[in-house]
Structure formats: C-alpha cells, structure tokens
C-alpha cells in the first residue's frame, strides 16, 4: 500500500510506521522528533490541546519542507505526520523522521524541519488551560511578513 510521506491525521501517531517510511538500505542514521503535549508552560497548567489545520495546504507545506531538506542535505528521506483534533498530555502532536547515510545530516535536517513547520505550515493550536482557553500564534515572536514577503518562495517566481 502506498503511504504518503506527509500526512495530517486525526488518530494517534504511530512512530514505528513513520520510521518505516524512511528506512532504507543506504541509511545509517534515522532521527525522529516528537512534539508532545507538555503539561506546564510558564507556570500555567494545560488540560489538553486542540489542533486545527488547513489540511490540503498543510500537506503541501510539509511536502515543501521535505523538498527543501532534500535540496540542502544530500540523500535524505523525510516523513512528517501532524495530528489534529484534541490531544491530551504526553500525546504526540507531530512526528518527523529523517534518514540519511550519516548522522550529522539526519540531526540537522530534523531540526530544520521543526523550525520550518513552526513558520509555514497552516496548523493552529488552542491551549485549554485550567482557567481558560486561547489560540496560540506567533510563537516565534515575529510579526507577520517580517521580510515583507510570505515565508516561502512560490514556484515559478
């Protein structure tokens, strides 16, 4: 069965499945990053999170990140799955797996992937605190269009 490398899912993320997608005979290193729901943030208690995505565009942007990685780090394979809906403490919101012949690229590309997800992928998180709820945005503490341009170069430009 064909498995897409870039997915937005409603169900709990199975890490082994995502690792399998990038496992290859040429790979000597596989890094994964799991973003999990943390209970405490700046002294405030989270009860659960809710993620919403603009799904078709989010998948496109994840694929875009994969493309950027393959351009920057030779012979890497990339799989990213982001979950949406309600997530309880310790559940996995995002899983990134990168394989490469050597470990340096696998670490670097993985960290690049999560940074880019936080910049360009249309997914939003709503924190449900003990004492209220709020949509989180602008985590990077940057204004929009900091460069006056959207955060990716469109094809053909």
């Amino acid at each position, binding site marked *: 069965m064909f498995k897409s490398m870039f997915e937005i899912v409603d169900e709990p993320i199975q890490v082994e499945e995502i690792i399998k997608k990038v496992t290859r005979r040429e790979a000597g290193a596989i890094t994964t990053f799991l973003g999990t729901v943390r209970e405490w943030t700046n002294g405030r208690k989270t009860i659960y999170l809710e993620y919403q995505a*603009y799904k078709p*565009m989010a998948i496109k942007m994840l694929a875009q990140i994969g493309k950027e990685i393959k351009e920057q780090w030779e012979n890497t394979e990339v799989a990213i799955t*982001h979950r949406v809906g309600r997530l309880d403490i310790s559940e996995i919101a995002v899983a990134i797996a990168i394989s490469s012949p050597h470990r340096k690229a696998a670490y670097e590309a993985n960290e690049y992937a999560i940074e880019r997800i936080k910049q360009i*992928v249309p*997914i*939003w998180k709503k924190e449900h605190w003990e004492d209220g709820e709020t949509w989180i945005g602008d*985590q990077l503490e940057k204004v929009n269009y900091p460069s006056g341009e959207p*955060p990716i170069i469109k094809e053909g430009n």
Partner: protein
Amino acid sequence: MITVLLFAQLQEVVGKERIQVDASELTVTELKEKLKSKYNIPQVDQVMTAINEEYALPDDLITSGDIVALIPPVSGG
C-alpha cells in the same frame, strides 16, 4: 464569487468556517478591506493570505472561483 476560509481565532470571531465574497477580481489588500468593513475582524491586517493553497502577497490578484485562506500566525509542531 470568491471563497474565503477562516481558521482558529478568526473562525471563532466571525462564527463561520467560510465566507463567500461576491467579486470577480480584487487584490489581497482589497479583499481584506472588504472583510474588515463587513465583518468585525480587525485581526485581518495581521494575517497571512493564501490563494488556492499558495501564500500570496498583498498585491496579488484574486479572481472569481479562487479559494482564499486567511492564515493567522501558525502554531503547529
């Protein structure tokens, strides 16, 4: 007719997931002005815009049939 998709806090402020805007051609900035006057969404100046799932610039043209998404600062990951 242009379809405008709303997400996160914008969806809650407006109380809808999508808005239909009756226009045949206008820029991203013009669309935002239109939305500001019709709906009470001051945040619209602070959101990015995508046209047919591609990030767009303020001067980019939207034409009838396009799907526009208003994209508040993202917070995935």
